């Protein structure tokens, strides 16, 4: 991916910015990310990653959870890649330590 990326700290909780909403769309058979007057369809892996962005889980936590859900593959690099691009696009941000 050649999109601008923004690194994320590994242990901070990650949250969606408040104008974004993620939901499952049966008609499109995928997750969509909704925002003012726009949307992105998140197919396959992208949806699996984004649905774990809940304002609690950190980058580490999300990778670990995906590894449990899809054992056997090494997902870390792809997940970090995707989340950094999402961060670069301004969909998500690192929250505060609680």
């Amino acid at each position, binding site marked *: 991916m050649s999109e601008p990326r923004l690194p994320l700290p590994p242990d901070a909780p990650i949250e969606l910015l408040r*104008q974004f*909403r993620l939901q499952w769309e049966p008609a499109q058979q995928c997750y969509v990310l909704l925002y003012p007057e726009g949307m992105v369809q998140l197919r396959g892996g992208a949806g699996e990653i984004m649905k774990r962005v809940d304002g609690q889980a950190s980058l580490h936590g999300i990778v670990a959870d995906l590894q449990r859900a899809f054992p056997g593959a090494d997902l870390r690099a792809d997940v970090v890649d995707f989340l950094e691009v999402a961060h670069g696009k301004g969909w998500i941000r690192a929250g505060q330590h609680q």
Partner: protein
Amino acid sequence: MEKDGSELASISNPLWLNAEITYKCPLHCVFCYNPVDYTRYGQELATEDWLRVFREARALGAVQLGLSGGEPLTRDDLEIMVREASGLGYYVNLITSGIGLNEKRIAAFKEGGLDQIQLSFQDSTRELNDFLSSTRTFELKSKVARLIKQYDYPMVLNVVLHRLNIDHVGQILEMAEVMGAEHVELANTQYYGWAFVNREHLLPSREQLERAEEVTNTFRARVGNAMKVYFVVPDYYADRPKKCVNGWGTTFLNVASDGVALPCHEARMLPGLSFPNVRDHDLRWIWHESPAFNAYRGVGWMKQPCRSCPERFKDFGGCRCQAYLLTGDAANADPVCSLSPHHGRVTTVVEKAQLPGERVPVRPLLFRGDRNSRQLSQ
């Protein structure tokens, strides 16, 4: 064209429902995109009809809902619509001039699940804002902007740019920053409806455009990610047309205040098509089977140069309404395209816009309003 089952299956779902719930509006913008003959249209749909439209479109797959107009706040059942739409799972956008929004209403919208409010501004200065919309509304809008913040909505500002305000882009952006805007759309006027009638007054010069883009880029560099600024260039200055409504009948479904369903806001002007009304048909039939929605779907209807153009799937030949307005035939290439034999109709207008500002356009600036609409309907 007969549609068989297999072709039907290839029609995509509408994703975006735009509900022009009323054409009533307290403002009189000279660039208004509403049809100039709106006073001719029949009665507005009742609340229950709109709720049914929301349900039917949602079942077809629509997920973004725009509540627009006119000024949607002139309807006192907007709260009911917001609640129902939000319950159905729409991302609900209110597209408003802000006139009529008070604390009681915004509290009800928040509680009902409204997702965002897009507030339009005509300019950063009170004088021009009020002149261009022919009202005294700037103070009111600033108050509304504060309400939007107070209720923790993202601040999305929309400013329509044109010859008379484009030199103020710097001030407009500063105003947006002071208001704490998160998204700012600097949308150059699109020449339909009232804006088409006022085109000579509104089309900026190339130099104005370039300066405005420069100012915008400098501003972007300074604020970074804190504010997203979109700058939409007028397509008259492009040499390829926009992919209008993402392709006719692919994504966008507009329902006008009187229930007429359209593949774009402007399509009602096209001759020879009879657009179905949601009072007579359900949306599934309208979207998939009505002749009007199939008229310009895909590429089968195209003439040359589009028909054999390698770019035809990229822009679907541009905008049907612009083709009709400027060439008299909606099946022609959008004349914004430099490959169109009618491209000269765009360039002549553009060349005229390079003349100094004092040139006297033939007709006076026409404000949107019922009287002018009745006159233009004759």
